[in-house]
């Protein structure tokens, strides 16, 4: 076992993590721990763009951007955070450009912008060109640019280190904090994949930037490594997760595969058609049609398929039609995604429409933070020295449905803020002594897992989890389907207790890591479903067929999911009688729900029409 001491430790080297590192590493001793080489992070897969009201090509301003974000999130957005994000977007883009990001350019040599779903001029009048982009590789360029600047600043990386535990002064999953006491995060425990060695990192400030959890679903645009590690680690320490029921399904995944075709395809003029060749989005969103927010488009597509207007032998997908676009235009603006269609489906997008179907894409929920990226341990208190940014966090700027291009923005704006506040805090704070047994739990877990005799295969349990999530907690949900998912997850949690790994070695044991990741997935799926069962309304990405309407009277609140000991009271901070009071008992713990109010500044909830 090795121990390290850093002022700031950043977990995750995706966009959010590296943006934070650039802020912090110049100020204090900083380490970035990542289970992947930084440039392998899934930020690199993002395609379409990053929006900011630069107004380089047409009139635009950050207020409109705020409004679109709020409306897109079906009013569950914390509007103070959305305002900050929209305002700081402009600098975030300019920062990146100055760091060297090769944006596409206008004829005048400025950063070019294009249309994207849900982004409008003057509060919904028409689509506006707000997304700054580099072909359909914007995320790739952001990730590369940030990494390049980390190289420039000599940021210290621990690559292929898996963080497996968070060390805190209190374990809230075991009991409450006494009044007046502060909860501090003091370090993390990491596993060096290459050697199998355990490393304990002591830190004054820790930033979680571990990305999403798309692998709880089967059909997803997310990487194999997006297993919700950061969220699960926080949850296991008794910290809440916010709005987990809201998961975004991106309308245009390659049918059957889930590989994403960016919304930019529609931003550049692509059209969705059903088996009758009809441009069906005209019926669902007459004003902005194919560029409606993702939840609406995904639902419309699923509905077309359900009503028998799907295409293909099984009538189970719709078509994304680019054939009316100039091949040269496609090559210039959408080179990668058309290549995906060719490589993976053997379809030539110049001449044939591409089969698409919604794919699990983005977790709107996550570790709750305030606008300074400080992690909350209930609806008002922060955890000292713990920060989160990026997809792992819930600020909440996306509410119940994220607008396209707002996540690359989120990781830059709040990544920067996290780095800044963490460094500032680390300058004033001192190290907290780590308990001598800080790593014991992790070591025991690893040994136990490694030495377990024959049991279930990790892959079987994972597959069944993903299948039940796809079948029961996807675009359309009902109380019944969700309860089915929950009971499946319960059974799988039980089986997980004796899954066994075949690789018993120490070196590069990915078999073992997959087993641990499965544990994270199960925990995340569990709270996602519990929160979804509890929210008896439809809003944004969460659509309940048994409650098809939005219910602002009862549910204009963020869900907070806590893991508590079985003996703890059934109520959590912010419990609302009759609504957010669901409790699920599991073996050894229970999941308790509370709420957090939604911050509204200038926009009153309205009906969401496009």
């Amino acid at each position, binding site marked *: 076992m090795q121990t390290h001491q850093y002022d700031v430790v950043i977990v995750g080297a995706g966009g959010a993590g590296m943006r934070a590192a650039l802020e912090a590493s110049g100020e204090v001793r900083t380490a970035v721990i990542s289970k*992947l*080489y930084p*440039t*392998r992070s*899934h930020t*690199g*897969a993002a395609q379409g763009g990053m929006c900011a009201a630069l107004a380089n090509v047409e009139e635009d301003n950050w207020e409109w951007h705020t409004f679109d974000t709020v409306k897109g999130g079906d009013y569950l957005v914390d509007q103070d955070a959305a305002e900050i994000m929209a305002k700081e977007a402009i600098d975030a883009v300019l920062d990146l450009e*100055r760091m*060297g990001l*090769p*944006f*596409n350019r*206008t*004829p005048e*040599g400025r*950063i070019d912008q294009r249309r994207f779903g849900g982004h409008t001029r003057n509060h919904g009048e028409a689509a506006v060109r707000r997304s700054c982009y*580099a072909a359909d*590789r914007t995320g*790739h360029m952001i990730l*590369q640019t940030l990494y*390049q*600047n980390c*190289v*420039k600043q000599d940021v210290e990386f621990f690559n292929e280190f898996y963080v497996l535990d968070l060390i805190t002064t209190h374990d809230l999953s075991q009991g409450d904090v006494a009044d007046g006491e502060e909860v501090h995060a003091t370090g993390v425990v990491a596993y060096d994949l*290459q050697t199998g060695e355990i490393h304990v990192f002591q830190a004054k400030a820790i930033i979680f930037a571990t990305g999403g959890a798309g692998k709880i679903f089967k*059909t997803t645009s997310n*990487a*194999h*490594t997006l297993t919700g590690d950061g969220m699960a680690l926080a949850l296991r320490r008794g910290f809440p997760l916010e709005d987990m029921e809201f998961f975004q399904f991106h309308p245009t995944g390659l*049918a*059957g*595969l889930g*590989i994403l075709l960016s919304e930019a395809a529609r931003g550049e003029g692509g059209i969705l058609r059903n088996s009758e060749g009809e441009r069906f989005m005209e019926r669902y969103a007459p004003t902005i049609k194919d560029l409606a927010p993702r939840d609406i488009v995904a639902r419309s597509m699923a*509905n077309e*398929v*359900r009503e028998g207007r799907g295409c293909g*032998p*099984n009538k*189970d*997908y719709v078509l994304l039609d680019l054939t009316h676009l100039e091949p040269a235009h496609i090559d210039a603006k959408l080179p*990668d995604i058309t290549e*995906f269609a060719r*490589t993976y*489906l053997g*379809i030539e997008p110049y001449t044939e429409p591409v089969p698409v*179907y919604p794919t699990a894409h983005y977790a709107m929920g996550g570790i709750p933070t305030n606008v300074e990226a400080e992690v909350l341990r209930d609806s008002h208190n922060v955890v000292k020295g713990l920060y989160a940014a990026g997809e792992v966090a819930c600020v909440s700027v996306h509410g119940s449905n994220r607008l396209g291009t707002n996540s690359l923005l989120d990781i830059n704006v709040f990544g920067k803020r996290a780095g800044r506040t963490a460094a500032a805090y680390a300058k004033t704070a001192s190290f907290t002594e780590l308990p001598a047994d800080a790593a014991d739990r992790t070591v025991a877990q690893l040994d136990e897992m490694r030495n377990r005799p024959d049991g279930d*295969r*990790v*892959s079987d349990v994972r597959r069944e989890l993903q299948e039940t999530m*796809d*079948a*029961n907690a996807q675009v*359309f949900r*009902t109380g019944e389907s969700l309860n089915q998912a929950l009971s499946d997850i319960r059974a799988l949690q039980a089986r997980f207790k004796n899954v066994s*790994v*075949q*690789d018993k070695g120490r*070196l590069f044991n*990915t*078999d073992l890591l997959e087993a641990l990741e499965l544990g994270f997935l199960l925990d995340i799926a569990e709270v996602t479903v519990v929160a979804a069962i509890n929210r008896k309304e439809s809003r944004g990405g969460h659509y309940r067929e048994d409650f098809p309407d939005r219910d602002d009277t009862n549910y204009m609140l963020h869900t907070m999911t806590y893991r508590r000991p079985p003996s703890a009271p059934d109520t959590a901070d912010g419990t609302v009688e009759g609504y957010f009071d669901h409790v699920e008992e599991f073996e050894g713990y229970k999941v308790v729900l509370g709420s957090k109010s939604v911050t509204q500044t200038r926009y009153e909830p309205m009906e969401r029409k496009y």
Partner: protein
Amino acid sequence: MTATLENPATEVGTVPSFEVTLRVRRYSPESEHGEESTWDEFTVTAHGTDRVLDALHKIKWEHDGSLTFRRSCAHGVCGSDAMRINGRNRLACKTLLKDVNPDKPITVEPIKGLPVIKDLVVDMEPFFASYREIMPFLITSGNEPSKERIQSAEQRERFDDTTKCILCAACTSSCPVFWTDGQYFGPAAIVNAHRFIFDSRDDGATQRLEILNDKEGVWRCRTTFNCTEACPRGIEITKAIQEVKRAMIRRAF
């Protein structure tokens, strides 16, 4: 109920499944074979749109959990899974089984020229060390503009090709010159230098050209084109290397 498909994996059209055999080169110092490499054969059932990565996953998940390889994005954008498939460097997640003649066993080996850690996993550190040496970041002089730097669409186009690199190392580890002693900077480092040398906003070209005007720099490239053929991003690597060489010559004469 939900509109989720009964069988969401249903492919476009009906694709028959077939049996495919993979011959994988194994190396695991902890195993009974010690420092010796061995070949293992596995036969799995695959479908029409399955990639080599899917087959490797099937092996790992259904046959031998100890088979070790890197992967993440599974669609050719993260650069994790460059390996030698039927003798050529490719990304496992971008190589359809049906395109590599599944009638015969498909050989899978780690990329060449970097130290093997386990099975298909190699130590990437030397590769990234070369990358870091060419100063892969924008170098500017003068004051930061308050808004963006101006760059015309043509100037942006000039280095577009080399911005696509995902640092997968397929090129460098396909280069016969790199195999010999591993001291050569390798095509990937040159590609990333090219990306900045030809960026109109950058002022560090001289330094980078100097770094690559080295015994182990661009002059070691013998234009074998293995790199260009291996690049999963379709970057014209040899062309980029030649452009860097010519830039150096222009500077020297």
